């Protein structure tokens, strides 16, 4: 049964990715306007001949189907996503790779922090329902959860950067800085990372804590918890061994799906702090009509979401044997 479940999940994911690749092609071709005009911009003195030349150079003179479509599938399969219009002469894959690292760093750390703190806060609140910690924690969680990233980011920026002057306001490392040792790099990175990381983590903590709390509260009313208590187990043992494993289930799904949306969430935080990740790249690509890069970001994003879902499904299967059938 186990391998069947696995196969079905993987097959679904693969099919989704193929559909995404096709959709990506159709979507960007369905856009109004002609690509050669974007390429040439408002270049003075563009003649019909120049336009024809440009079309030929980019293969736009060939029919959309099958020629352009086949060429697209071919190169996508080979990992060739074309060239960025804006970053002249750079392949899209290179541009994406360059921006992926900072985003993974920021959101990877953010997720870890949020998972640890959010789940701890949530389970504690749920366990001690009605306590001061629960009320205050819940209120703060709600506020953080409902606050858009950019607002939270701007508030932190105003208070701790321009206000107190503790942290730099933008970037990942001080441009042009020279470092004597790795510790200097870490300190510089840490200073730049602090506020964006706090923004991401705080936003997610709220979300995770609320879900975890309600999940724990629900589990505590289950018969098996009452039974465990009746058997005289200590409180923290009941919580850790009996309640938490079951309460974790919905949270795992949320966390896994969230991982897929890391890049999407990145946009506003990264723009506020001018963090050189995929979020700022997306905004820049939109502004400069860099369609090849946008296409690449779309592909990366959707594949990430598919994989995160697949991961959630599989993990769920491990955690809860009931779904494996």
């Amino acid at each position, binding site marked *: 049964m186990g391998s069947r479940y696995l196969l079905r999940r993987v097959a679904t994911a693969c099919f989704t990715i193929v559909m995404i690749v096709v959709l990506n092609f159709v979507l960007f071709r369905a856009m109004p306007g002609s690509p050669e005009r974007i390429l040439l911009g408002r270049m003075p003195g563009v003649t019909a001949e120049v336009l024809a030349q440009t079309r030929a150079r980019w293969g736009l003179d060939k029919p959309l189907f099958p020629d352009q479509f086949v060429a697209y599938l071919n190169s996508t399969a080979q990992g060739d996503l074309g060239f960025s219009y804006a970053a002249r002469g750079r392949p899209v894959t290179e541009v994406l790779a360059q921006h992926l690292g900072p985003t993974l760093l920021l959101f990877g750390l953010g997720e870890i922090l949020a998972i640890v703190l959010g789940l701890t806060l949530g389970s504690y609140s749920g366990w001690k329902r009605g306590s001061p910690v629960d009320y*205050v924690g819940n209120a703060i969680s709600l506020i953080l959860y409902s606050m858009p990233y950019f607002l939270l980011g701007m508030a932190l920026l105003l208070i701790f950067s321009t206000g107190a002057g503790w942290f730099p306001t933008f970037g990942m490392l001080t441009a042009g800085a020279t470092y004597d040792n790795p510790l200097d790099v870490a300190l510089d990175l840490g200073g730049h990372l602090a506020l964006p990381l706090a923004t991401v983590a705080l936003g997610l903590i709220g979300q995770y804590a609320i879900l975890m709390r309600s999940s724990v509260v629900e589990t505590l009313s289950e018969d098996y918890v009452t039974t465990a208590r009746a058997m005289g187990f200590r409180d923290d043992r009941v919580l850790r061994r009996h309640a938490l494993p079951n309460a974790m289930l919905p949270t795992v799904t949320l966390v896994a799906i969230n991982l897929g949306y890391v890049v999407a969430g990145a946009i506003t935080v990264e723009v506020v702090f001018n963090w050189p990740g995929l979020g700022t790249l997306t905004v820049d690509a939109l502004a400069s009509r860099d369609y090849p890069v946008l296409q690449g970001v779309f592909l990366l994003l959707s594949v990430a979401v598919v994989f995160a879902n697949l991961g959630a499904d599989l993990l769920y299967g491990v955690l809860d044997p009931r779904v494996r059938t």
Partner: protein
Amino acid sequence: MRLSLRAKVARPVAALLLTALVLLPSALPASAADPLILRVGTGQKLATLNPWHSITVADYEIFQLQYEMLVSFGQNLEPVAGFADKWESSSDKMTHTFHIREGMVWSDGEPATCEDARWTYQFVLDAVASETGYVGSGYLEPYLMNAGLKSVTCTDPQTLVVATEFPTTLLTQAYVPILPKHIWSKYTMEQIGNADAKGFFANEPPVVGSGPYTAVQWEPGQFIRFARNDKYWGKRGVPDEIIFQTFSDPVSMVPALKSGELDYVRGIGADQFDALKTEPNIKTVEGFSNGYTYLSFNTRGNQKGYQGSTSALADVKFRDALGYAIDHQKLVDAVFNGHAVPGTTHVPPYHVKWHVEPATPRTFDIAEANRRLDAAGYARNAAGNRVDKEGKEIVLRLTWPDSEAGHSTDAQFIQGWFKELGIGVDAFVTEEAKLSADLLGPEAGGPANWDMYMWGWTGDPDPMSLLSFFTTDNIKSGTNDAFFSNARYDELFKLQQRATDEVQRHAYIDEMQQIFYDAAAYSILYYDSELHAYRTDKFGGWTSQPPDSGTPLFGYGYPGYLALTNAALASPSPSAAPSAAAPSASAGAATPAPSGGGTGTPASGDSGMLILLAVVAVVAVVVVGLVLARRRSGSSQEEE
């Protein structure tokens, strides 16, 4: 007192955290031995180090710091020594001799000679003669071709002789960077001009140049770092390094300028610009931009091959009347908080020497517009709406590219004013690439499917390009998007191009502005302003180019960079800087600025308020939470 296990762990952790908090910030500010860096923020992307691909102002700024032009631009935009130190033209102004400075070397130590200049100019000639007719983005060649470049030779290593097709004085304004032949000649035109060609020459750092600074580091999407070129022939710049930092959202530049992480910003919004005026140690500067925003009319209306919605558009009397219903000052106030100049002719006032006001300007007057429409035969129907000569109600489409979102405000005003004339306006935004294609007339293979649209043009140091857009020839190329065609204008264009006497050329250009204005093919809505701001506590000597109407950086050439001084050395009396920087004393008095320090700026009124609000909010949440918890536990006890 016995400590619980939890407290045993918690105390050292808290101590560690506190130490980290104290240490972190102190690691950030630069120590005294560090290089003096000028940090410049721009909302524009830093897209290329290969000048043939330059498009934006930021791109141009990047190349002109590291490559000399044959003749450069001074503080007043006058021609000054660049790659050449002397130049002269023959009496017929068709042969031009440039003397290349002796003993000059590139930043890598190779000699810089006439051959480098010859190679660069010949490269342009070859590009224009090639199959595509341009190289890279195609922005640089016209500087030489508009001057009639015909041939270029070196008679000796120090003497460049340029022959032109017609008499010209424009070669001293040619915005073409002279490139080191020993680097660039290793690549084919395809590798230099085509960004996706195999072996494309991106000109990665370290760049070999002849200007005062050369690029040594490029983090695409983030910044380009320049170091002083010690081989540069002229004055030694004060900053050791210059870093151009790009921002996805220009708003983010403002806190960085306030905190001292940036020394100069270009391209901030009008609101932030006004807010920065009261900041300590920050000075704002509003310069004329060399360009304008326009409302273009489809002057061919619905003639064969053109898809304008009404024949009225082709009638100059109709367009002239509409001109009286546009309140340019109102647009400037509403869109830019007054930081722009109401528009008239198509040579902006940035060109102090060439701009003229029209003899009979169309001043805002709805009644006058109505009178003119009546007189031109556009009567109102029973519903009060104007009808064209075919009896069809006039409803004009008004659009603008999605890249210029701010135009929606302009559109609302125009809609309101035209309504008072009995003319409906259907306003909508169009995707930029689609708009570019819709605009083209049948001469350029397009549908001309539009009535009115808004966009902008940017000029060069010489008004030549701005004038050239509207010759009849350029209907075919698409720059003449209003399909304006006037035989006298075309003739004048050629005359001014060949005019070697400035007074004479002035007369031609005056007449061209007047003709274009009278034809009402464009309504120049406003001349946008360049809104910049800079800090005065690190660098002094900020000088605008030109001094009374320009900005210190992002001009032509690089005089603004070389004029900078080290503020720490320049003003021993600390009172000098604040008095120059903060014209309004009220804000400064409330929060006195600490001198020196440099770790950070004090909380200004805004952020102080925010901190207070944040603290109040947190306390409120805690208190409410506690009260609720108490009530809850109280009630649960009662239940028990």
